[in-house]
């Protein structure tokens, strides 16, 4: 069947077998290999992407379910690896050493982006609970949690700065 998905803002259209998983559509048809497959029981979260803004495990969705919908992968967060162009979550992961081998990272980053969209100032416990579906074997999660909290803090400062600026203007 023909599947058309808007991935990171661009339309990707392909004729694929009905049983094609979204993660494979992203990795093959869309040519975006950052999103990884880490398991076969929807347990590890390495395949996490955003579907219409919400985190989902792309290995547990058919590409057909994403037809005419919008997907965002880690590659879609920043246009370049210039630190200043990075998304606050990417910047925070780097600053806090929230990755080692990098395999779980794209899924972890997208899960964090989704968390912060729903809860802009999570507590540490809330961050840990929100990441229970994302496994990492290298970092022990300590710095990942710090990165998410730091990104939340950066968002807060940015929002406070914007609020203060608009107050001054008013």
């Amino acid at each position, binding site marked *: 069947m023909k599947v058309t998905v808007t991935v990171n803002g661009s339309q990707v259209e392909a004729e694929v077998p009905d049983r094609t998983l979204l993660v494979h559509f992203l990795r093959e048809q869309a040519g975006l290999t950052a999103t990884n497959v880490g398991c076969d*029981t*929807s347990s590890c979260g390495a395949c996490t992407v955003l579907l219409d803004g919400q985190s*989902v495990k792309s290995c*547990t969705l058919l590409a057909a379910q994403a037809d005419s919908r919008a997907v965002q992968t880690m590659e879609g967060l920043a246009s370049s690896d210039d630190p200043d162009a990075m998304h606050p979550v990417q910047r925070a992961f780097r600053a806090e050493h929230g990755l080692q081998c990098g395999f779980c990272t794209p899924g972890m980053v997208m899960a964090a982006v989704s968390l912060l969209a729903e809860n802009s100032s999570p507590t540490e416990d809330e961050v840990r*609970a929100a990441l229970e*579906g994302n496994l990492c074997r290298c970092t022990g999660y300590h710095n990942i949690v710090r990165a998410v909290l730091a990104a939340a803090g950066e968002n807060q400062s940015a929002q406070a700065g914007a609020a203060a600026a608009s107050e001054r203007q008013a």
Partner: protein
Amino acid sequence: MIPVTFTYQRASSVDEAVDLASRGEETKFLAGGHSLLPLMKLRLAVPETLIDIGRLRELSYIRDDGSHLAVGALTSHHDVATSDVLARELPLLAHAASQVGDPQVRHCGTIGGSLAHGDSAADLPAVVLALDATMIVRGPAGTREIGASEFFRGLFETALEDGELLTEIRIPKPASPGWSFQKFTKRAIDWAIVGVAVQGGNVALVNMGQTPVRATAVEQALASGAAPGDAAAHAADGLTPSGDFSASRGYREHLARVLVGRALTESLTRN
């Protein structure tokens, strides 16, 4: 890792979904897919046709109908968990939905999908059993209503006939405000080893049998005035929980007693 080949069809209305299902062999409805697709990926489920009902937004709603709440079958766990209406009227359901899986699962999985899957280790079947919910079902012969106590027939077996679609879960507003949900796991992400859902004097258990079950011995004890601790001692009466790699039968029975006691105590604080 990869499902066996199947044919994908997409329904644009409930009627079309029922119609498509009536024509095919070995068809399954696909809602969020988070109960069905994992089984298909391990090739433990091999439907020939999948009818995607995920676009039927008309089945995603939460409505306060006065004496009861109506929850559309395609409402995601996330939407159930974050609903202001449910937080006010059915906090047991809202809270239990917030405990299903992880955030990614909750964004995709639906209440209807979970109930239709009929896994006695899942959280929501026991919750709707404790809430005396009614399932509204549409099929080729029309619409019918099935009470929660008749809905769950066995492990992965419900009262849904071939081609029938669960469209709505109707829940009476509870007479008693006390509630509690106790989900016991080794890790936060695990299925419940044992779980307890309490609403007033209704006590339902997760993973204590082939279906969700009401702890009727506990309910009877409570009704005849027993204190929570004494009532909880009956939690495993008449039940045959399984022993498996996660827990032995004896441990499950012990957990049921402990968790029912805790649930009843917590429920009282909310009265």
